[in-house]
């Protein structure tokens, strides 16, 4: 097995996410299983008609936190390689905001590691999204909506 750094690929990009770039990175002759996750922009969220999303990050720290997650999954599961890519700036409906790919000898580890990675990314990586919807805009995860009527903390699916 090569060293940890060669088994990790993390990227923040304002270009559309290329899933193939991630699956090519994690492909390995020793792999029997590969799982991927793609998080996309829905046309509705919590009853609002979504127009698009806008992402910003804390440059530097966001990459570091992504690499931490990748390194952690390499130690927690018998996986071969992990790749994750997150988009910044404007993201239209149906487009991918984030993609993760994991390769492993066996599928169980590949599924668990991929699911854990996206859960952690949403908990710890300093990236924020503003939802532009019909009638206003809203920082998801914050209490601030410009419509003035949205004051609850947005609850994401943490399951």
């Amino acid at each position: 097995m090569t060293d940890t750094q060669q088994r990790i690929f993390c990227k923040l990009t304002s270009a559309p996410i290329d899933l193939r770039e991630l699956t090519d990175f994690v492909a390995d002759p020793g792999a029997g299983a590969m799982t991927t996750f793609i998080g996309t922009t829905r046309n509705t969220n919590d009853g609002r008609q979504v127009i698009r999303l806008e992402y910003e990050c804390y440059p530097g720290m966001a990459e570091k936190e992504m690499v931490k997650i990748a390194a952690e999954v390499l130690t927690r599961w018998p996986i071969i390689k992990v790749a994750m890519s997150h988009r910044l700036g404007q993201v239209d409906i149906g487009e991918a905001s984030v993609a993760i790919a994991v390769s492993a000898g066996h599928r169980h580890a590949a599924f668990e590691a991929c699911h854990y990675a996206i859960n952690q990314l949403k908990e710890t990586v300093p990236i924020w999204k503003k939802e532009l919807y019909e009638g206003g805009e809203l920082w998801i995860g914050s209490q601030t909506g410009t419509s003035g009527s949205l004051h609850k903390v947005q609850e994401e699916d943490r399951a």
Partner: protein
Amino acid sequence: MRIRLRFFASLRERLGRTEEVREVPTGATVATVWELLKRERPELAVLERSLAFAVAQEYVDKTHPLQDNDELAFIPPVSGGGHD
């Protein structure tokens, strides 16, 4: 000592700036700076419960002591990923 403050997302919009450099007394902690900001902008108090802090791009708690030239970031609840 001099501390660079960084603001993101909703906090950036509320404050109308992305960063600032501030003089703080030696021995100041993250909490010292946060209390200072709240005194200037009392409406920030509602963020208290949900805000996280990072120094030198690592998460820290409020008691973390600051050093000259530290970068202190205020991190509103993160929300990376899609609508999933």
